[in-house]
């Protein structure tokens, strides 16, 4: 099964809001801690190593793109 990047939530904005609200009042460090736990919980729920690897790749590629853009701007 390939990583699904189509929109799967009936109300995507509600999902986004739920994640943002979970971070309310947290310090940067606490936020990172929450995110780490969230990733592991959701990864376990998915239970598919290939999907997990694809998701990691997508997330990393995005970081790479952002840093390249910053270099171009400078």
């Amino acid at each position, binding site marked *: 099964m390939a990583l*699904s*990047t*189509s*929109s*799967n*939530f009936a109300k*995507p*904005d509600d*999902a*986004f*809001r739920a*994640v*943002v*609200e979970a*971070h*309310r*009042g*947290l310090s*940067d460090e606490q*936020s990172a801690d929450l*995110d780490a736990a969230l990733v592991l919980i959701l990864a376990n729920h998915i239970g598919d190593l290939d999907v997990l690897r694809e998701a990691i790749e*997508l997330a990393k590629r*995005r970081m790479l*793109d*952002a840093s390249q853009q910053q270099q171009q701007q400078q």
Partner: protein
Amino acid sequence: METRPRAAAEFAGSVARDLPHRTQCCRRRKYPGIDPLDRFYGAGIPPGSAVAKAVLSLAKETEFGKRMINGGRLSVPSTYDTRSRPPITEACAAARGPGASMPDAPLAADAGGSTFLTEAFIRAGTRFTLLEFINGVAVDPPDGVGVIRIGAHDGDLVGARYDAEPGTGLSVAARWLCRRSFPATDSCCAQTPRWRALSASTEVFDHGTVDQFEFCQAR
């Protein structure tokens, strides 16, 4: 300033003691600890909101990222060039400029509970409202102008987010941040002889934004 009441002195002390990062933050024109939802709606991407930044970057190549973007929530209001309103003091220059969205902050409620600045503004109505940081000088606002008073019991966050400067001088009663929901006419300055605006900007602002005035109470 010599006769500043004790409560105000204590407030000044508490801000100085508990917000050592404030000077640094203001110099960098950043606002300490503004968390994503402590703002009015549509207030823009909060500083340090990794989730908002992530969803924007994911939107480039994924459908789910695009669908998660809420234009209203992620939009940033247009702020006005503050050169049209010369800064009065360094403290003012560091505060949010005209047109900016208002950061929210927790306040102490009258009954001893807690509330938020946004809620206080909703209760004060949609008229011209002054946000007063009590610095020892009693304030007598012009007619038709609401006041939200912030004291020591409201905690430090609200002062930090608005860069309130306790005891900012002798003649200046307070620094003001106003929310207006009607076209700006500066009538509150012009029509009340007891008040003279030291500096006021005349642009028309949207609902729920900040404007900055400095008043001097005529003596």
